[in-house]
Every structure is written in C-alpha cells, then in structure tokens.
C-alpha cells in the first residue's frame, strides 16, 4: 500500500518532481563530467608522452641524463645487436647530441635528436626526412616542431647554419634545411629539439651505429651495456605532477559533490517543507510515524532512482557528443604540458558509482531525516506548517 501511495504522490507532483529529478540528475552529470575531464587531461598527457617519446621504456646508455646536455656527447655506444634486430614497430633508436643553430645571426642552442626514420613505434610526424639518403650531403635536412620553429623564427624551406662537435671534440658546421615544420602533441619533443635522421647525426658526429637510447615496445630482458628505464621512471616528473594534481582533483571532486549535495538537499528539504501540512494530515488520518517516514523516504528513493536513470540517459548523450568534439585547449600550446590536442573525457567507473551513491544517499537521507523529525513532534505543529521552519 505504501509503495502505491508513494508512487502516486511522486508521479503526480508534476513540475516539482521534474525539478527535483532534474536537479539531482544534472548534479550527478556535472560532477562526473568535471572529474572525467580532469582524468582525460591527465590520461592524454601520459598517453602523449608514451606515444611520442617513451613507448614501453628505454634501454639507455648508462649515465645518460636528458637533463645534462654537457654529458650527452660522452654517453653513447654502439646499438646492441639484440635491440638492433627488433622489428621497426618494436624499437626506435635515438642519438642525442648538442648543437647550435644560427638563425638570423643569433645563436640558438638545440638538442639534436637523431631518430631512425624507419621506426614505427613512436608516433612522430617525420616523413619529411625519409626521402633523403643515408649519408648526409652538403645540406642537413631537419624537421622542426611548430613551437621550435616559432621560437627560432624558422619556417619550412628556410636554411640556417648548424654547428656541432664530433666524437673527437672537433667543431663542425654546415647549412641546415628545414624540410618540414610539424605539429607535435608533446611539447617536450618540440621545443628546443631539432629532428634529424639517425644515420645523418651518426655520420655528422662520426658515431657510426651509435645511440643514446633505444625506445622499445616492451622489456626485452637485460641487455649488456645498457640499462632499462621503465615508463614510470621516464615520466616520473609527469606522474609526480599528476599525483599532486590528483589531490587537487579529489578536493575539487569533494567540493563538487558538496555543492551538488547542497543543491539536492535544498530542493528536497524545500519539498518536505512545503508538504509539512500534508504530513500532519496523514498523521491525523491515522498514519503511524513509521508509515509517514517510510512513505516520504520511498518517494525520495523513487526520485533518486529516476534521477540516476535520467542522469545515465542525458549523461550518455552528452558524453557521447563531447567525445566527438573534445575540449579545445589550444591555448595551452605555449605551456610545457605535453598535450595540446582536444581533451576527451576519461570516465572512471569507480568515480561514477561513488558520485551516484553519494548523491542518491543525500537524497534519501534528506527525504528521511526532516520527515522523521516532523513525525516525532506533535502532529499539530505539522498541521500548522511549523514543525520545521
């Protein structure tokens, strides 16, 4: 009987029920959307690092440190056979050296990064280098990222002087041709980096067949003369940043949940407040306190369940649309964060479930608590609408 009465009460409340359900559903959508967008940002950051630089880890020449450019020239070695034999889709060899560009008669220190142009493990738009031969000719072909090109004031087809030192410390210089300016999603492989063919850089520095590291799809076991650095190690700074960010994200999530909870609380308490007289009438008609509390809690639960249904319906449509367009963050292109394509949502089921559980609990609690309070007072107060003020 109580269920039928509750359903009748709930389904016939009209705009009040619709508002109640919509506020709750939108609150859930807003919370999940925000946290998923945050997740998406972090996930794309990590993904871009792996896609463009880290792959499944690096076999590095011991002592190589990307943050110590003055030591790069001393930390190279011949590529081990076991790594050289891997297919192009499973390894990407790289040699990193220092160099200096002289665009417009100004000195511009750069990282010369020679990459095996046949590799397909890393997603790098370096096709412009493929058409050149293995030996470097009079002019050195190079590819630049958009940010690097902007900062060095270079564009496709420009030539400038590149200076470097070979393995004996002898300084050499030659003209460099910018064969392509490409968009890099990861600014860490764009800014300050000059992309060359690996064989060219080896030739220029007289380091035949030498590398600084080999990115691999997966760990190949210990390799003599190389040390393996895992993905987590290679993107430790990003993970650290994300870890700190996650704390803020969690605080943000709690604040959003709190705000959503207050919204739901407000709507629901207003609903109960407006129905005080009805509660008094039900008690006068002979309903017990437990029945009245049960009735209102059931109504709240029905509203909560419908809210979840509406949230899933609207949320699925909204999220599906959003995944097709993403959030434009091109304004972050100038930052060093390794992401500047459109951000997509990364929805974690745990967060969705906990958001739903918390908001539904608030809704049911707010249906239960004030009614319980009212029914414990004299029914005359409820009849006069003064049980809760």
């Amino acid at each position, binding site marked *: 009987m109580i269920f039928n009465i509750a359903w009748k009460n709930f389904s016939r409340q009209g705009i009040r029920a619709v508002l109640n359900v919509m506020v709750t559903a939108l609150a859930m959508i807003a919370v999940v959307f925000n946290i998923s967008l945050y997740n998406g940002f972090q996930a794309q950051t990590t993904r871009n690092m792996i896609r463009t630089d880290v792959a499944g880890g690096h076999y590095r020449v011991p002592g190589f440190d990307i943050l110590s450019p003055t030591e790069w020239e001393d930390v190279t070695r011949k590529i081990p056979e076991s790594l050289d034999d891997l297919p192009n889709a499973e390894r990407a060899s790289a040699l990193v050296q220092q160099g200096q560009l002289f665009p417009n008669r100004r000195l511009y220190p750069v990282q010369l990064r020679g990459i095996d142009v046949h590799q397909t493990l890393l997603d790098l738009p370096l096709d412009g280098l493929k058409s050149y031969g293995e030996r470097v000719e009079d002019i050195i072909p190079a590819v630049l990222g958009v940010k690097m090109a902007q900062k060095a004031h270079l564009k496709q087809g420009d030539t400038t002087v590149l200076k470097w030192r070979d393995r004996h410390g002898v300084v050499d210089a030659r003209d460099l041709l910018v064969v392509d300016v490409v968009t890099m999603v990861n600014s860490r492989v764009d800014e300050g980096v000059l992309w060359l063919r690996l064989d060219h850089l080896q030739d220029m520095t007289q380091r035949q067949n030498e590398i600084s590291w080999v990115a691999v799809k997966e760990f190949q076991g210990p390799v003599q003369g190389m040390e393996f650095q895992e993905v987590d190690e290679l993107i430790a700074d990003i993970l650290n940043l994300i870890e700190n960010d996650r704390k803020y994200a969690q605080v943000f999530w709690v604040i959003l949940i709190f705000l959503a909870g207050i919204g739901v609380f407000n709507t629901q308490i207003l609903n109960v407040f407006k129905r005080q007289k009805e509660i008094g009438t039900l008690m006068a008609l002979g309903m017990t306190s437990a029945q009245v509390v049960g009735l209102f809690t059931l109504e709240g639960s029905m509203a909560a369940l419908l809210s979840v249904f509406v949230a899933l319906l609207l949320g699925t449509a909204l999220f599906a649309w959003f995944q097709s367009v993403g959030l434009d963050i091109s304004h972050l292109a100038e930052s060093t964060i390794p992401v500047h394509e459109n951000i997509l949502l990364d929805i974690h089921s745990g967060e969705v479930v906990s958001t739903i559980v918390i908001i539904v609990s608030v809704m049911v609690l707010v249906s239960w608590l004030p009614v319980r309070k009212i029914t414990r007072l004299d029914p*005359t107060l409820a009849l006069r609408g003064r049980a809760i003020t």
Partner: protein
Amino acid sequence: MNNIVSIDKVAKVFRVGDEDFTALHEISLDIEPGAFMSFVGPSGSGKTTLLNLIGGLDQPTSGSVFFKNVKLGELNRTALAEYRRKNLGFIFQTYNLLPVYSVYENILFPLLLDGNKESAVRRSVLDMVDSVGLSDQIKKRPSQLSGGQCQRVAIARALVKKPELILADEPTANLDAENSFQILELMRELNKQFKAAFIFSTHDEKVTKYVNREVGLEDGRVCWDKRRNGSGSFE
C-alpha cells in the same frame, strides 16, 4: 460511563518564547455518542487546542482525556495513530485534502490506510461521494474544486470509514454564507444518518442554529454549556 469522550480537569500550557501561556484551565466535559455540538469562542479561547487533545494530536499538560473509557495519555504514538485511524474523522478549516489525489482517491484514502482493498470499498466510496453531492466531480483534484466542494470532500473523507467521532475545526470559516449553510445542513443529515458524534470548534454564529449543544470557551475556561431543549431553544 456511556460517554464517548470524557475530559477530566484538562489543562494545557504552551511555552511561548520565555513565557508560559495557559490555553486551557482544568476543563471537564462529557460528550455523549451521536452528539452534534460546538466549542464556541473567540480566537485564543482554546477551542482548537481542546479538539486536538480529543483527537490525540496533542497531550494535555495535566488532566486526562478519555475516549470510551480509554485514557489517551496512556497510549503511545502508534496506538494514538490507530485510535485516530479507527475512531476519528477530521475536518479542517483549510480542508487539508491531499493535493495530488482526485476526489475519489481522497475519500478512498482512509479506507486504504485501514487495510482495505480498493475493490472491496469502491461502492462505499462512491456512495459517500454521492452523499456529499460530488458524483460529477469525482475525477477532479482539489485545485479544480471550489472551497465548498473541497469541504464536502473533507467531510466525505472523515465519514467514509464510519467513525464514531468527527472533529471539525472551523469547518465553515473559509466558506461563504450559502456554502456554510449547505455544509452544516449536510453534516447534520450525516450525523443523523451515520450516528457519528460531531464536535465543531467555531466562532461562526451560523453554526449555533444547527448544533444541539454549545460549549462556550473564553481564555481557556468553559463559560457556558447550553443544550437544546425539546422546543428547540438552548437552555
């Protein structure tokens, strides 16, 4: 004692801010079954308080209220709810109909609360709707009815379970003169038909013409208790 309600030295004190306000001063009254009576007095005289005490909606500060020799003060909340459900019908000044229910459903509601199946009591409800002259409004909701029609629904709701006692708090206060007369006439007929005792609280002089007994209250005290004699006048 054959009285349906006995009030024995009942006092009620309300706390208003930092002060106590005595709404009723040790009132004693006996009300017989089938009575058609009113508590009359100005605002604040204690009429509604007295009705609420009889209805088990409030508890006296001292003294006792008995319903058919059962002391209401000894009943817990659940038992008081059952007492109201089984024995009482309430009619409120502002009707207090359930807004999302139709006329039919509002009248049906107390019977469902009492554990009846709709199919078993449908006829009784339709008869009651007919008794209050609302057969053509049966599917309408309270918001679609006039004040007089709402009060008829409230009366039907109070009577449908055939209680022994109807408590009506200012039932004509929100009605115009014509509707008031119609409602009072209706209640008097139903009082005769169903033998239920009707107790009104009112300051509407029109009610005086209909009731058989009138208890005057002022400042929480009984000032007079008049009964209609065989010739139809109060004594």
